[in-house]
């Protein structure tokens, strides 16, 4: 589904990604871990098409298309979804209204008719149940005055609504207490199927207790320095990132 080859990127004058290689197939969950400043969030931003990040080399192919040539909105319409680390507030725009606009724009891009109000409502009700979110929250202005947990739950609700092929969860566990973490993880798990894929960007192992990854990659200084199965995350947790840093230094 997603093939990243030797991806390099910078912000301003600062080179952050120094040659990333990654292969994600449908049905897989990949966790990208790494210490602060290793380039995890940059990778997520580059894939979603943030303007401030300049790609300086490499290739990214998504479902047979050159992802780097697509506008951010077209990447979303092709099926890439990013759950933001800091979801933004949009006053006066309810989540319902926001999702209706997004869903219909995506449908239009795919040559589908806009959903009528009844079908939309039905879809919404179904997804609300799935991710355990209350309608009163969805009627409020998007993320305005939401708690940290509510914001993240709202992100997962949007993910459920848009049914992306590839979801990128950027530090979704940050700022969540254990109950919120469980609800968010449950939502993600329910949305997993053999046709979609997930990339989880995280600093801590604890989210991976709930969302079990197929692969774990460790990012350090803009490169994937170690890859393995889910047990790698546990090893990291036990030994700390210094273990990786030392290993890299020795090599």
């Amino acid at each position: 589904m997603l093939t990243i080859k030797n991806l390099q990127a910078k912000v301003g004058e600062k080179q952050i990604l120094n040659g990333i290689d990654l292969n994600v197939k449908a049905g897989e969950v990949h966790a990208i871990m790494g210490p602060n400043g290793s380039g995890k969030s940059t990778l997520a931003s580059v894939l979603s098409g943030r303007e401030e990040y300049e790609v300086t080399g490499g290739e990214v192919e998504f479902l047979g298309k050159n992802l780097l040539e697509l506008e951010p909105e077209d990447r979303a319409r092709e099926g890439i979804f990013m759950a933001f680390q800091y979801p933004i507030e949009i006053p006066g725009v309810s989540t319902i209204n926001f999702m209706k606009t997004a869903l219909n724009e995506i449908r239009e891009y795919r040559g589908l008719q806009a959903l009528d109000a009844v079908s939309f409502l039905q879809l919404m009700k179904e997804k609300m149940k799935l991710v355990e979110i209350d309608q009163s929250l969805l009627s409020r202005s998007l993320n305005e005055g939401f708690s940290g947990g509510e914001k993240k739950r709202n992100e997962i609700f949007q993910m459920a609504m848009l049914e992306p092929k590839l979801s990128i969860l950027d530090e979704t566990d940050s700022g969540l207490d254990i109950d919120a973490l469980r609800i968010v993880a449950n939502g993600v798990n329910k949305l997993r199927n053999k046709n979609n894929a997930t990339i989880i960007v995280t600093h801590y192992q604890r989210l991976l207790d709930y969302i079990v990854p197929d692969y774990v990659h460790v990012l350090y200084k803009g490169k994937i320095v170690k890859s393995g199965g889910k047990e790698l995350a546990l090893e990291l947790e036990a030994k700390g990132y210094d273990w990786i840093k030392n290993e890299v230094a020795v090599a």
Partner: protein
Amino acid sequence: MSKGNQVLEEITSKEYEHGWTVDLETDEAPKGLDENTVRFISAKKGEPEWLLEWRLKAFRLWQKMEEPKWPNVHYPPINYQDIIYYSAPKKKATLDSLDQVDPELVKTFEKLGISITEQKRLTGVAVDAVIDSVSVATTFKEKLGELGIIFCSFSEAVKEHPELIKKYLGSVVPMNDNYFAALNAAVFSDGSFCYIPKGVRCPMELSTYFRINAANTGQFERTLIVADEGAYVSYLEGCTAPMRDENQLHAAVVELYTMKDAEIKYSTVQNWYPGDKNGKGGIYNFVTKRGLCFGNHSKISWTQVETGSAITWKYPSCVLKGDYSVGEFYSVAVTNNHQQADTGTKMIHIGKNTRSRIVSKGISAGKSQNSYRGQVHVMKRASNARNHSQCDSLLMGDQCGAHTFPYIDVENNSARIEHEATTSKIGEDQIFYCLQRGIDEEAAVALIVNGYAKEVFNQLPMEFAVEAQKLLALTLEGSVG
């Protein structure tokens, strides 16, 4: 007016009492403005003597007044002698189909979601008899007549209901209120008159659209709405379709008058030609709008969506004379390119326990300047007066300006006045969040801006609100990125 002025005026007016003849054959007054012009207009409209005198008085007052310089707008001096003040409504050439209309205009109509019938009406294409707006208007008029509601053109009202016009004309906006109001009083072309009798709730939104002779009311429009005891009316002015006019200067006057327990809700969507991208052309819109809550427990509510005109100078106000009366002002003012707007409201609290609420949402883009100017005045007698003002500005890009000029005068210690103001920018982060959900930049801006202005749009009648949202998006098209 001082005694000296009064005497002076009587003398001067006497001089002009006789000896003027007016050529009724021509359809157009010669360029320029003098007493002759005023007499010409009045004669053309077949007005009674008292109205001519009223106009002349206003003209003489106007001559002694000066154009206001305090608004935060800049434009070359207006040559008042270079304007034609009266021309008979010209019959527009009737077209056979929309194909003959400027395709750009049709595109705009489509974006606004204006129906084909309406498009035809606006561009002067012949419309089927069945859906002809005139016949619709006639039906409405009959229905209103049964309830005793008077809704007609100003000229018609002068002929049919002179006692009402005599009583209320200038009762809210005196002829010498300001420079542009005086000019309007002297040369007003036509407008609307509406009277809702005691205890009647007008069953439909009244709009100039449903009024016969609504077209070509000219550049000096005058509207007067009176709601008698316990009456209610919602009135819509303007439309979202772009309005072009050969006349650059527009100076309208609107007067609202509510008796005890009465309510008037007045909604405007103004979309006059704003000039081109470089600021050439465009309408100068200098409007005086004021409502008088005369009776106790009466209410006047202004809602405006201002997107057009090169220059807007407009302060729909409420004079809260009756005890427990309520004044409201909800405004969205958008400026783009080189537009300039200086708009806001005045809430004058005279009666006891009067309340007012101001919600102003300014949006500036391009190289435009957008000013909110509002006054809250609590007079000595107005104990327990309350006001809440919310003035927000939204900036798009870094070449526009947003300004807020609040004036608060309180003469009674029991008053409670609250003023909140915010300034914000549409953030890159907000736009990116939308993009990442598959919403393109234009739709994102529309979404964000409409969310920002929602509180005001909620005050508009449903259909109008939907159109206004589209209009807002259209006005700001291409102003980000």
